[in-house]
């Protein structure tokens, strides 16, 4: 019985002990960089795989991000964290983040919802 209660407590802890501050800070920094047209700074906040996939051949991440001409994502309206992943809704965007040892990084940005399917994101890995 104690083992079961332990697993239940573990499940509740892993499911409910939510640290939303980390992803919220990362999303705020990314949003501020996009709003200020600081593409290099925004790229530095992306996950490595996302930053590598974004540019076309011969382009840098910052050039590719500038070319997308993303609008001001605005302030945070909702933060959802599950394990090492997070979804942050902003007034004008939806961001997906992933936790790494050096903190939260953007996995996908400029995302539009698609009913019953994954979000359609202009920036994704």
């Amino acid at each position: 019985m104690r083992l079961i209660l332990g697993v239940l407590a573990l499940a509740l802890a892993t499911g409910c002990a939510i640290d939303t501050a980390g992803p919220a800070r990362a999303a705020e920094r990314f949003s501020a960089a996009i709003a200020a047209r600081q593409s290099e700074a925004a790229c530095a906040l992306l996950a490595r795989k996302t930053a590598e996939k974004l540019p076309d051949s011969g382009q840098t991440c910052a050039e590719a991000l500038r070319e997308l001409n993303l609008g001001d994502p605005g302030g945070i309206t909702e933060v959802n964290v599950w394990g090492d992943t997070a979804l942050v809704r902003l007034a004008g965007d939806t961001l997906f983040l992933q936790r790494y040892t050096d903190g939260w990084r953007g996995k996908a940005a400029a995302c539009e919802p698609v009913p019953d399917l994954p979000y359609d994101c202009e920036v994704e890995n």
Partner: protein
Amino acid sequence: MSRIRDNALSIAFMALFLVCLAGQALAGMLDYNEQQLVGGGQPVGYLDYITSSNFAVNVAENWQSEYLQFLLFILFTIWMVQRGSPESKEPGEEGAESDEKQQIGRYAEADSPAWARVKGLRLWLYSNSLGLTMGAIFVLSWLAQSVAGVASYNAERLGDLRDPVSWSSYVTSPDFWNRSLQNWQSELLAVLSMVVLSIYLRQRGSPESKPVGAAHTATGVEG
């Protein structure tokens, strides 16, 4: 030494359980880390993995089904028989049985448990304590599966750039029921196999089998 011998069965199963649980955690971590790398995530260590929702849901989904299996076996064999099976009572003995046969109340023996000698709620609780405990562990494990399951499922969904779902949506989702039913069907098949095969087959020396020479029609006889 005799204490170990007297408890050899429990010790053996506890040791195997712990080895398998540790093995599951290791294999689960390696599998999880493979998926993390594919999804652009970061591998986790052993301690991080055994406190993750992924490990918790995989443990809990198996636990709940095992306790459900034994709960059903304990309850069904009160009222249902299988002629020829050592797992069953004799046909005609269906039901909760008399106080005399159950050695309760005034029929209790000198070495009967204290709550078998009393009346009322304590006797009722003790009379059903095995089923109640198995049932409680089943319900708690299944609840743990649902809570850890929604956390693990939502982490996967966010990784796939999809919206998370609520607990109430998760417990009606295909993921939850696939995890539950795939375990239930295998447990029920195992019980069915035990009940039916033990009519015709024998394992010499095992109390789970009839004696080798017992008739196929002999019911409730253990070797």
